[in-house]
């Protein structure tokens, strides 16, 4: 009984998800087909040709590059900003608690709708943000429609929506840190920067990793914000994985190519999260070994 218990506890959750594995493997099979719904005569099993074709396709490399840049930028910026906000709100007080909930509002706005509103707010004619930046000397800011500012614009919207996610996880982490080391450091007169980098950050690391992992998995798969703001344009500036695969599937009905693209995206996220989780487990071991 003692031995079976953990299996019994995790089994229902696993079973619930196992059903998803079947469609997943179906998709793996699709990715090895030349399979375009509106060219049924062309359908055939081609092993890894869809994947091999990507290697010589500059558009694919562009997609890979943009997706990684987007994910990297948003995660790093949101992590820093989220940590700063969490530190600002660390002290328990009524105001801080209220502000922390208030700051969750952007996260509660569906990204597809948030993007629609941002698109209006950045419209050169009617947009309040365009108007405001024109007052401070940028009368011709073109936001998402200009190749040089498109990435900045979608990253900004992503930060607005998802930084609160980072913030709340890190805040929970900060507040759950044991107080003893900090009291000791304060008594010894240890410099604050030293405390932050040598005590706070390492102890917060598991939370940082969890928050980063979840954001990274979401961000590299971003669709709603980018598609609603620019549809992957201007040009091919924001043609990230999900946008390209969406167009391949829903517009071109190119099931084979779309599935192959998604499998690659899945492999990337699998690889990245493996690294993170290994690190996370190691930290856990160390923390618990020390305690």
């Amino acid at each position, binding site marked *: 009984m003692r031995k079976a218990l953990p299996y019994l506890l995790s089994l229902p959750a696993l079973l619930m998800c196992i059903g998803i594995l079947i469609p997943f493997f179906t998709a793996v099979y699709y990715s090895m087909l030349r399979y375009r719904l509106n060219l*049924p005569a062309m359908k055939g099993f081609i092993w890894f040709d869809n994947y091999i074709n990507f290697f010589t396709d500059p558009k694919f490399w562009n997609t890979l590059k943009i997706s990684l840049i987007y994910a990297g930028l948003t995660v790093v910026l949101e992590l820093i900003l989220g940590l700063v906000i969490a530190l600002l709100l660390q002290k328990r007080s009524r105001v801080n608690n209220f502000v922390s909930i208030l700051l969750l509002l952007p996260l509660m706005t569906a990204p597809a709708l948030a993007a629609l509103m941002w698109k209006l707010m950045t419209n050169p*004619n009617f947009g309040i943000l365009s108007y405001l930046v024109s007052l401070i000397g940028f009368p011709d800011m073109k936001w998402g429609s200009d190749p040089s500012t498109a990435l900045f614009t979608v990253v900004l919207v992503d930060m607005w929506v998802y930084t609160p996610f980072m913030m709340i996880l890190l805040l929970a982490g900060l507040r759950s840190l044991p107080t003893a080391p900090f009291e000791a450091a304060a008594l010894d007169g240890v410099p604050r920067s030293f405390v932050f980098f040598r005590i706070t950050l390492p102890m917060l690391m598991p939370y940082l990793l969890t928050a980063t992992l979840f954001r990274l998995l979401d961000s590299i798969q971003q669709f709603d914000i980018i598609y609603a703001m620019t549809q992957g344009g201007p040009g091919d500036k924001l043609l990230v994985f999900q946008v390209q695969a969406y167009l391949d599937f829903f517009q071109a009905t190119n099931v084979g190519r779309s599935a192959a693209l998604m499998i690659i995206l899945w492999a990337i996220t699998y690889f990245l999260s493996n690294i993170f989780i290994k690190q996370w487990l190691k930290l856990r071991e160390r923390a618990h070994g020390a305690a």
Partner: protein
Amino acid sequence: MYDKEKGLFEAFVKNKLSRRELLRTTGKLGLSAGAAGILLTQAQTNAMASDFDWMKYKGSKVKLLLNKHPYADAMIANIEAFKTLTGMDASWDIFPEDVYFDKVTAALSSGSSEYDAFMTGAYMTWTYGPAGWITDLNEYIKDPAKTNPNYNWDDVLPGLRASTSWNGVPGGELGSADAKQWCIPWGFELNNLSYNKPMFDKVGVQPPKNLAELLEVSAKLTKDLGGPYGVGVRGSRSWATIHPGFLSGYANFGERDFTVNDGKLKAAMNTAGSKAFHRDWVKMIQESGPKDWANYTWYQVGTDLGAGASAMIFDADILGYFMNGGDNKEKGNLGYAPFAANPAAAAPTPNVWIWSLAMNNAGAQKDAAWYFMQWASSVEHDLFGARKMDFVNPVRASVWNDDEFRARIDKSYPGYLNQYEVSAPGAKIYFTAQPLFFDLTTLWAENLQKMVAKEIPVDEGLDKMATEMDQKLVEAGLG
């Protein structure tokens, strides 16, 4: 009737009308409107019921997949007429336009039989048809046992009938003898100029007559109006950027998207004529288009015209029509003009978007579905929608000749009938029907964006684009 009611409520809100008065007057209106509705339904039923067993599928129920659109609203407003006529019932799922075609693709690709018929654009049937998701409607239209004798299929504008039929061969001519009728035209839009008359008067310009004038007039408007820009056209990274004004002007110069030789397709966007047109178009956007043109879809183009941010659009005529009503700031200020980009062309050649009805091939009750479809595309319903609702543009010649409809349009939309009549003979789909339509047309828009952003020069960009398209055509076994 709607205006009257709205006026009443406004008066009530502004305290001009007491609650008692409001209730009494709306009651009267409601009663008379209801009575009128019943009378109209009866008249329709009587006219249609002769010589055909409309009650054959009495008791059955069809389910429709609809886009949230005034055409669907017009149908729903008249659905009692269908129920009375056939004894059938109808239900529907309406999805917002933003996600509508995703829903259609999801439903059809899973082989779902939930929906019997659905709304679609003609371009989409180039995917749905070869994929085997929709039924060739010739089997129904040409069968007197299935189609009522008063259906009068030939009354549907010939360009639209042809544009919705295709033999399924990549590059095959639309409306050829061996073509399959993939869908029934329901309502359509053609592309011409809609413009703000007070703005034109202020600057002292007339609606342009060709592309050179369009550039000139838009530039002057942008410069002299001091605020609003000259001409609104779409620019988002989507096939939808190509099909309205852009392709209409492009086709007017006799330019093609693809050439077909021995059944092989080849991109034709890099001819000298095409390059010249692209150069002008790009220049027009850079000089007098919206600042954030690359964001522009149907909605932005329309919103700007309606809110007075733009002086003119080269887009769907019904977009200009919608912006002349509602709570738009510029309502009542808009005019309409036909537009032939090529000074040497005899008439405009507007490319068209056709909202159509198609039949789900996996549907379980196709004959009953066809009963709905022939009713929804009948002269009677078309007339109802054109007179009472915004079922515009109607697809039937007889409706365009209806005095009541003409009077309604002429009164509130000056120049609309004229722009339609001048350009209707040349109105059809100017794209080549082929399975890669969405991929390649989106690629076209992507390159247009790069040209407007000055990331690539026009001529070189078009050569590169044509090469890339040819390669994709070969990969798909089409080139």
